[in-house]
């Protein structure tokens, strides 16, 4: 065991966990990484390309190496950073990206041929012979690619979405963030403090005595005060992963990732936090210093070594060495020595090496040994080489502020020559300021003060007065910085650990003129691993700058993009999966139809009754044929509520509709209905429906189901944006009225039985009449004599809550008339038989002329789309709607087939149209179809070929009128 004394772990409880099948013990407060180190496990993973053995490199979310598969079964979670995985009892983890065991990974052969796999190698080979890429090379590459594995099972956990609002959001709960939150919360402002860790304190937890009092005491006092402030919300285990426009932030709270099982709670919550001001106090990430073979397990960031010792009371080895270019390394050495860890040596790159109680050498680390874990490092000092035995090496190369979130908008980081770091530049998110180490304020005292100052300033912006609080006396030694970007040498020196990008790869990119940072990144895959280059990018930019001789400031950075750390797709999806993916809109008769045993189908957001099977019917076709014939012979009832309904009222309602519809509506008489054709402003057909004039100043118009929302929006656009001078008001009443179609030769008989005292005779209520009236003894209703089926038909509307009762009453009252409920399938057959256009014909590519409705576009008035519908290309389109029947009645007609003249070559150039809709017509006893055909009107009786190469079909069809039934319209008028 490599446990030290102290630390913020609870030794009173033991947690059992497994890694690669072996069982270990840890304590509450441990991460998987700290617990593995405590059990002397240094080897935790393999790198992406060369499969090099890797151990933990950091103590935070920047971890590039220690990635594991956490949990098992459907909860298996690939690529989890052991450094942030909170330990729980029963935790199950396995290593990944290996063939064989972690210690003996067969894929490590890649490392032997590493010179071949240099940056960009795959762009230069695998090209011959051509077929081999897909058959051989790519399958091999794909198998080798990736890190962890998905279980291929649906995620069993629940997720949630929430919304929060604040005056001030503080990102990060370290010294600066705590000071900012305290300052702001005391002012009474609404404050949210979010931190990715499970314990507040940030870097304070990793240091030895940074404050005058013990850190846990100070934080405990703060937390007590925080708990008493209702205007402050502290969100632990919460990562702000992206900042969006106008103060909107994406946050993920890991509600139960620290538990073996969520136990009825959600696993994670996606929060959308809208904040007027934001303080980014996200700290800094330590830089490493690339040297030859710097990637062995045991080599890690110096600050991480310190964090493991101070916070987690663990050291990866009994003897450690430090490689530093500043006081930072000595701080680590002193902290570890204080815990009884042996300091083999501190290798300090600075010429003036301080006097220390441990061995200090001026020089560089230039190599390392140890196949699966560090055994020794080579130190080169004044030209002399020496091997120093150690089980771990801490590398301290300075600190890079965590400014990713400040750069999620247009602002690019700017190089600060004095601080030798990139800092947040101008053009960052509006309302966001950076504080603490993220702003280059490196000492604890600086961080505290800058956080408090930032809070006062941010709130002053909002007109809220906040006072600087009394802050504890803190250490005030800012990290000095004379960067050592890398140790030159012949060996491979890793810059990006996970993706195996070395200094040599950067040099090769330079040699091949892939010098702009974006080319460098893309050519070498630098910074494209799961850590997004948090420990690699700045170093790589510096190395490239050294090679080009251009200053770092001119070299620039790549663009930071969300998320700050990777986010599970489950939580981004918010948990509304499966049937909950989208709301289901139900018609007023839905429950009634369900009780009748109806089959349902999705129609946009709606569920509609598709058909009503009866006992003895073997297939859906049997049911649909019966329903269609029942309508043609007797009477059928269908719920058509889903059609959009818009109530149009006002003195100028008629004038308004004249401009919205292609045909005239102002001339419509009160009590009458007219078919209406609506164009888009570009002249193509948008929608059709009926327009009923209920009163001098009131119309009710219908739209297709699909366009109900868009047409309403468009009409509001016309009303508010084009013609606000017209006296007209609109309201959508789609959901307010249940509407039922009652169709068939006995429809009048049926309607007469429920309508209260209105003469429904042909003279009294002729075709296209409409009226407001009552039914069933006083229920208010609207009656329209309109027909989609070609039969004598009505549509009756009643307040939506009475829809189901009306449906039941109609079927019951019409039992002797053969009243039959019918669904969308029969509705479709009936309209195809009648030759009415529907969604398949009105697909947004259709002109009025193609529908045979060209003359409806009234040239005497200005209406939406009229002018553009007269464009030459549209007028010249010779395709028109025709009916199609198979020459051999046994053959089928398939929608989506393309139409060709008999004997014509079947290719794009000879294409004459296509079949839009098709069905079996029980009325005709054969298949029928509708389609658009060039010069169709002049080709009645001609035999053409329907080509459906997709399904290997060629069918001879005869061109007919699209009105298969009652072409003169006698049925619906009588």
């Amino acid at each position, binding site marked *: 065991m490599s446990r030290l004394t102290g630390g913020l772990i609870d030794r009173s409880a033991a947690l059992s966990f497994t890694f690669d099948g072996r069982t270990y013990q840890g304590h509450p407060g441990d991460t998987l990484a700290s617990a593995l180190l405590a059990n002397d496990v240094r080897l935790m993973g393999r790198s992406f390309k060369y499969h090099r053995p890797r151990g933990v490199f950091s103590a935070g979310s920047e971890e590039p190496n220690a990635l594991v598969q956490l949990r098992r079964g459907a909860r298996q979670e690939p690529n989890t950073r052991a450094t942030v995985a909170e330990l729980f009892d029963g935790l199950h983890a396995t290593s990944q990206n290996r063939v064989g065991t972690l210690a003996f990974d067969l894929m490590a052969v890649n490392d032997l041929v590493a010179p071949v796999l240099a940056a960009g190698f795959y762009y230069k080979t695998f090209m011959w012979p051509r077929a081999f890429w897909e058959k051989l090379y790519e399958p091999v590459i794909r198998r080798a690619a990736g890190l962890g594995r998905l279980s291929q099972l649906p995620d069993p956990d629940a997720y949630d979405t929430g919304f929060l609002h604040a005056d001030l959001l503080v990102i990060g709960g370290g010294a600066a963030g705590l000071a900012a939150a305290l300052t702001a919360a005391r002012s009474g402002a609404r404050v949210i403090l979010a931190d990715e860790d499970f314990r507040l304190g940030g870097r304070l937890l990793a240091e030895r005595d940074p404050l005058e009092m013990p850190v846990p005491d100070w934080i405990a006092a703060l937390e007590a005060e925080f708990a008493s402030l209702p205007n402050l919300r502290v969100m632990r285990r919460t990562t702000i992963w992206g900042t969006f*426009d106008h103060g909107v932030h994406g946050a993920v709270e890991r509600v139960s990732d620290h538990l073996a099982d969520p136990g009825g709670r959600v696993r994670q919550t996606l929060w959308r936090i809208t904040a007027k001001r934001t303080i980014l106090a996200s700290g800094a990430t330590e830089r490493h210093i690339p040297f030859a073979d710097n990637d062995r397990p045991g080599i890690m960031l110096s600050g991480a070594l310190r964090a493991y010792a101070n916070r987690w009371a663990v050291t990866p080895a009994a003897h450690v060495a430090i490689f530093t270019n500043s006081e930072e390394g000595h701080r680590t050495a002193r902290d570890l020595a204080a815990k009884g860890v042996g300091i083999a040596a501190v290798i300090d790159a600075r010429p003036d090496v301080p006097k220390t109680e441990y061995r200090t050498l001026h020089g560089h680390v230039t190599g390392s040994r140890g196949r699966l874990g560090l055994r020794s490092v080579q130190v080169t000092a004044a030209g002399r080489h020496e091997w120093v035995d150690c089980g771990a090496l801490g590398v301290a190369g300075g600190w890079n502020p965590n400014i990713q979130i400040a750069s999620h908008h247009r602002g690019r980081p700017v190089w600060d020559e004095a601080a030798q770091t990139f800092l947040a530049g101008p053009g960052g998110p509006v309302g966001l300021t950076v504080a603490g180490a993220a702003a280059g304020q490196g000492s604890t005292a600086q961080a505290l003060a800058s956080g408090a100052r930032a809070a006062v300033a941010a709130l002053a912006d909002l007109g809220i007065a906040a006072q600087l609080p009394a802050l504890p006396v803190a250490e005030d030694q800012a990290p000095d910085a004379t960067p050592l970007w890398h140790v030159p040498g012949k060996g491979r020196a890793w810059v990006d650990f996970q993706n195996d990008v070395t200094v040599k790869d950067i040099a090769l990119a330079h040699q091949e003129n892939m010098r702009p940072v974006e080319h460098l990144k893309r050519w070498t895959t630098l910074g494209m691993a799961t850590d997004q280059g948090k420990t690699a990018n700045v170093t790589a930019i510096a190395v490239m700058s050294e090679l080009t001789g251009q200053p770092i400031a001119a070299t620039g950075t790549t663009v930071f993009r969300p998320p700050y750390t990777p986010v599970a797709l489950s939580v981004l999806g918010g948990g509304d999966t499966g049937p909950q993916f989208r709301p289901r809109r139900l018609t007023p008769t839905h429950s009634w139809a369900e009780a009748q045993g109806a089959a349902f189908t999705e129609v946009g957001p709606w569920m509609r009754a598709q058909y009503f099977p009866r006992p003895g019917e073997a297939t859906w076709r049997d049911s649909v044929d019966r329903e269609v014939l029942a309508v043609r012979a007797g009477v059928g009832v269908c719920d058509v509520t889903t059609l959009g309904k818009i109530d149009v009222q006002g003195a100028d309602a008629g004038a308004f509709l004249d401009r919205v519809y292609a045909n005239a509506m102002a001339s419509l008489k009160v009590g009458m209905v007219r078919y209406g054709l609506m164009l888009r402003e570009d002249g193509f057909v948008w929608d059709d429906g009926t327009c009923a004039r209920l009163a001098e100043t009131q119309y009710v118009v219908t739209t297709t189901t699909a366009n109900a929302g868009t047409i309403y929006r468009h009409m509001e656009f016309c009303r*508010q*944006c084009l013609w606000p001078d017209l006296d007209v008001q609109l309201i959508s009443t789609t959901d307010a009225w249940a509407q039922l179609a009652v169709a068939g030769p006995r429809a009048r008989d049926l309607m007469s039985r429920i309508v209260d005292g209105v003469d429904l005779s042909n003279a009294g209520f002729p075709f296209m009449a409409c009226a407001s009236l009552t039914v069933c003894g006083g229920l208010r209703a609207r009656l329209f004599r309109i027909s989609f089926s070609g039969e004598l038909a009505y549509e009756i509307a009643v307040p939506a809550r009475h829809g189901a009762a009306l449906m039941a009453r109609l079927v019951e009252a019409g039992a002797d008339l053969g009243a039959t409920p019918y669904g969308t399938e029969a509705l479709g057959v009936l309209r195809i038989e009648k030759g009415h256009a529907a969604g398949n014909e009105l697909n947004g590519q259709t002109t009025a002329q193609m529908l045979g409705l060209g003359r409806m576009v009234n040239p005497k008035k*200005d209406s939406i789309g009229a002018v553009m519908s007269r464009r030459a290309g549209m007028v010249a389109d010779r395709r028109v709607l025709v009916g199609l029947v198979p020459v051999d009645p046994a053959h089928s007609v398939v929608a989506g087939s393309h139409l060709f003249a008999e004997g014509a070559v079947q290719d794009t150039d000879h294409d004459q149209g296509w079949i839009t809709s098709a069905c079996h017509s029980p009325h005709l006893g054969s298949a029928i179809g509708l389609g658009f055909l060039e010069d169709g009107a002049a080709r009645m009786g001609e035999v053409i070929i329907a080509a459906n190469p997709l399904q290997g079909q060629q069918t001879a069809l005869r061109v007919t009128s699209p009105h298969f039934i009652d072409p003169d319209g006698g049925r619906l008028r009588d």
Partner: protein
Amino acid sequence: MLIPHPLLGLRDASEFTYLGDAALLDRPDGMAPDAAARFHDYVHLRDNPAGLHRELWFHEQGDRSWLVVTRNTLTHEILGAELARDVKTGGAA
């Protein structure tokens, strides 16, 4: 994004439906002799500026008013929003 609705205050952009350039307010006269050319411009051509853009948003999940929003297409900063009806009639209510 948050849109400062002139009647309702700051509302999330997800409540709105976007249409495009507020030049769509200026529909030409369809009966004018040069209507064809003017409608082509009106329907199809856009300034598409990188910078300030006056544009139409519909408060579909709200009060159903059409707004003219002035927004910077480079930064997404919103400088103001007016009722389209007011813009069209030339005066704020």
